[in-house]
Structures are given as structure tokens and as C-alpha cells.
């Protein structure tokens, strides 16, 4: 991409053309590096863990539990 940036200024002459060529190249490189930095990183593979039973750790009776906690606090 950076190499292509020079093409745009080929038809312009003089000092400004040289300036454009250099600056275009720098901008192209800068944009490329910013794009690379902004690109979403590949998510790491999830860690393998010991399989757990489906209801392990689940509180099955929320309503009752909340009532009991309120009662305890009283």
C-alpha cells in the first residue's frame, strides 16, 4: 500500500511533488500500522477444564433462599 501512495503525485512537478511523495508514503505506512493495531486480536482458545455436572453449583430455589436470608437478617 505504501508503494502505491507515490503514484498519486507522479504527475505533479517540483518541490511539492517530492514533498507529496514522501508524505504520502509516510501516511500510508502510518495508516497501515494503525490498522494493524486496531485489528481485532484472535481470541485465545478456551482452557480445557474438568467437566462439571449440569446442575453443579446451581441454586435451584431462589425464592425460598431469598426469604430465608431476609428472615435470618430479622
Amino acid at each position, binding site marked *: *500500500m505504501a508503494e502505491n*501512495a507515490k503514484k*498519486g503525485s507522479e504527475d*505533479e*512537478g*517540483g*518541490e*511539492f511533488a*517530492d*514533498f*507529496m511523495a*514522501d*508524505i*504520502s508514503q*509516510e*501516511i*500510508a505506512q*502510518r*495508516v*497501515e500500522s*494503525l490498522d494493524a*493495531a*486496531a485489528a481485532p486480536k484472535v481470541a485465545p482458545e478456551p482452557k480445557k477444564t474438568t467437566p462439571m455436572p449440569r446442575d453443579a453449583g446451581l441454586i435451584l430455589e431462589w425464592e425460598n433462599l431469598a426469604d430465608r436470608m431476609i428472615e435470618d437478617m430479622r
Partner: protein
Amino acid sequence: MSVVNYGTREITCKIVYYGPGRSGKTTNLQHIYSQLPEERKGKMVSLATDTDRTLFFDFLPLDLGTISGFATRFQLYTVPGQVYYAATRKLVLQGVDGVVFVADSQKRQLPENIESLQDLHANLADEGFDPRTIPLVMQYNKRDLPAGEISSIEELDETLNFRGVPYFAGSAISGGGVFETLRSIASMVLSRLSAPAAKDA
């Protein structure tokens, strides 16, 4: 701050030419303007007095076209060098991305150069910029004057360039060093381009 705006696909950078009165700031911009191809020539805004002293500031929008998919613009400003335009200088420095300090190489102008440099640092600090880190390039102008009237580059650099930033010998009236200076400051500014949250805008 110079920013790559992914939302509007724009890069805009503001560069200010600073220095004492009659050091050649406006002449730098006039030379750049004279070299622009017709299709890129916008309007250079220049407010001067009858004696060609910059009254308010000069403004030269430099539309570089679309580069890597981004509409790229450099906005070049000068400040009025005379001491009594302090408020204008502060105003022009707002949102600056890089500074070109145009020093007058004449020996008798050395105190004015020093005063202007101190004024630059004070104003940058007032505007919330760190004078030690903002992109800065020195141009020692008027190298075309007789050798007896001007300080050597080494003398000027030792006296003015305590940050050790890039410096260029200039003869803005004939265009000498003008684009080298611009290229250098542009490069420094571009190296600090950042992509803010506007990416998702």
C-alpha cells in the same frame, strides 16, 4: 491533536510557524503556496498591514488529497511576531500539532529569537502542551545575507536548540530549506498520529 478519524476518513494536522517579527514565517508559507499545483491551490489567507507586517495570522490550507483512503489536510499558520500580539499567538497555538520555529539568523536579532522562543514555550505551556515534547523543528532563516551579518548555524543551534530537534538552514525568500523544513515537521507530526475512539464512529 492530530488524529486519524476513521469515521470521516480524514487526517488533519495543524502546523504553526512561530518566530520573531520579520524572521520569514509568512515568506515560508508564500513559497509553499507558490509551489502548489493549480488544482491544489486553495486560498492563502493573509492579513497584513501596509508595511507587510502580519497583522493577525496567515493561514494556508494544504489539501493533499486522498492518501490511503484518507482525505489528508495540513493547516499551516503563522503568528504575528511583534511582541504586542501576544493574545493572537496564544489563540493560533490552540490545537497545534507541530511547530516550526523560524529564527532570524542576523546577529542583531539573536535577543529577539531568544525572546520569541521563550514566548513560544510559555504559550505552549499555557495552552496545555508540553514544550519539551511537542513536535518542533528549527529553521535558521536568511542564510542568504552577507556572512558578516549572520550568526553561524552552530552558534544559533547552540543558543536556541536546547532540545536538539532537527534544524535547517533557510533562505525562504528564494525557497531554500522551506520544503525540507515542512517535510521534517510533517514527518514528526505524522509519527504521532493516533486513532482514537472515532474509529467506530
